[in-house]
């Protein structure tokens, strides 16, 4: 009897969590199959005469494919560069003894709390001077500097890589770069993947920076693209609706795929990075 009660509680709680976390996503999936005219009437949570019109329209008549491509290129490049640079930095802070190490660790920890939005505007002024404003680099380079990543990697290095393993490789005559590549990197795998996802998400969420440094529509990532439709498209609500619904669902599917593929690394990565007893 008690077991049955426990079972019922599990089902109820899971149902509540599913409703809260998945309802907006489900709603947008259903809404994306409706024409604008009937979007806000009738059954909101189940399909009625579903049509793919919104998708066809968005992929053939808007810049949605380009925004998707830009998102993958800009956030992806920032994620890869950022994760590797942070790993090298964290590895150095975590496993080498040198003068100034403590000061640098402190600097990283403080920089972690400087809001990226507050430096978005001065970053734009700087990039205009350097001549890289309104290019892919304008978004990729600032987004690659992850103070969070360096902090995370420092702790991860200390927690997971035994000094003896590194020393053993050194005794065998491996160079420092070889030790890093062949010994440390395998330990870093879950952390690198976790950090890639975090920097990827942070890049397309650093929307204020994108508003400042990306002026050409051809460089927009999905969030900026969809919002530009919202701002400019008010005279054609049916097209605006089509692009936003199709764009949102496509983005969500992209992220679901990425999560499911990398899910087993994420908990391992976050877990070790956050601990310190």
């Amino acid at each position: 009897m008690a077991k049955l009660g426990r079972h019922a509680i599990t089902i109820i709680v899971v149902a509540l969590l599913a409703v809260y976390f998945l309802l907006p996503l489900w709603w947008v999936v259903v809404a994306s199959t409706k024409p604008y005219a009937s979007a806000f009437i009738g059954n909101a949570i189940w399909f009625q005469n579903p049509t793919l019109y919104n998708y066809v329209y968005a992929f053939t008549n808007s810049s949605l494919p380009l925004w998707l491509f830009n998102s993958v290129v800009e956030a992806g490049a920032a994620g890869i560069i950022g994760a590797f640079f942070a790993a090298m930095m964290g590895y150095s802070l975590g496993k080498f003894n040198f003068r100034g190490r403590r000061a640098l660790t402190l600097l990283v920890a403080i920089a972690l709390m400087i809001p990226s939005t507050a430096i978005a505007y001065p970053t734009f002024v700087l990039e205009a001077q350097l001549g890289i404003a309104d290019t892919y680099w304008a978004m990729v380079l600032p987004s690659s500097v992850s103070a969070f990543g360096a902090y995370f990697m420092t702790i991860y290095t200390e927690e997971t890589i035994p000094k003896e393993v590194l020393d053993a490789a050194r005794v065998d005559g491996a160079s420092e770069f070889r030790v890093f590549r062949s010994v440390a990197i395998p330990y870093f795998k879950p952390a690198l993947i976790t950090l890639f996802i975090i920097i990827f998400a942070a890049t397309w969420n650093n929307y204020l920076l994108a508003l400042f440094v990306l002026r050409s529509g051809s460089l927009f990532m999905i969030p900026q693209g969809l919002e530009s439709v919202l701002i400019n498209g008010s005279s054609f609500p049916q097209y605006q609706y089509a692009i936003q619904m199709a764009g949102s669902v496509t983005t969500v599917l992209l992220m679901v795929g990425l999560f499911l593929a990398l899910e087993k690394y994420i908990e391992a990565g976050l877990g070790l990075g956050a601990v310190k007893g």
Partner: protein
Amino acid sequence: MARLTHFFFLLPFLALFFIFIVTPIFYAFGLSFFNASVSQASLFMNYVGATQYSRVLGDSTFWGGYATMLYFTLLWVPLMFVLSFLIALFLDSRRGKLGSLGKVMVFLPYGVPTVIGTLMWGYMYTPGAPMASVYSLLGLGNEALAPGFIIYAMLNIVVWEWVGYNVVILLAGLGAIPKTFYDAARLDGASSWQVTRYVKLPMLKRYFAFIAMLAIIGDQLLFNEPFTLSNLSSVPFGYTPNLYIFHVTYFLSEFNYAAAVAFVLIAISFVIAVIGVRFFMPERSR
């Protein structure tokens, strides 16, 4: 040579760090002492001393936005602690049965760009959308985005986006507690409430500090949600400090003043960071 190796590992990060974090901060500081007009070629024109700062100090729109952000933090941090802890406890106790299903479900919103997440919720808040009946139950009529309610509309969006991320962190922490701790507690006759209170909660202290830190940084960033909502309803342009900086730059074209506001914001974060570092900075293992 060997002594310099660490330097090569530091170099790529530090180079980008100095160009894209340190330099912009000094840039903002430098710009804040001028008051160039839009027609001038350089922003470093018309030296005005510290007058931009006295203007910031007396700017009630900016401080009003700052107060809104603080209020938001006060609501958000405790709510986040309680919700993520409860959900993590639940998922942890059903680990065998649910597998990764529950975890992926609550983590999913984190992967949705905040602008898109806000648009989805924004549509759901719209009169006539599926949520409308919930609002009338709450006594809100059709006005989920009424001026006094925007902050709670935002709170809901931010909770939806971030709870799952914190749950995954706490789940990892719960998974790292040695099983022998539970066995010892059971032998001493501890109830499951006592196990939660005296074993799980203290073992997660570091994780909670980490979450608190992320929450405080996150609040400083509050821009995407109010900015996106402002396209759907009337959000004041000074609603959060970042929204204000954008407004001052984009619509008022007062670039030097925007730099001063940004620098004040950075300076406040810097002070919070220096205090905060004492709490979450890892103790060195050696």
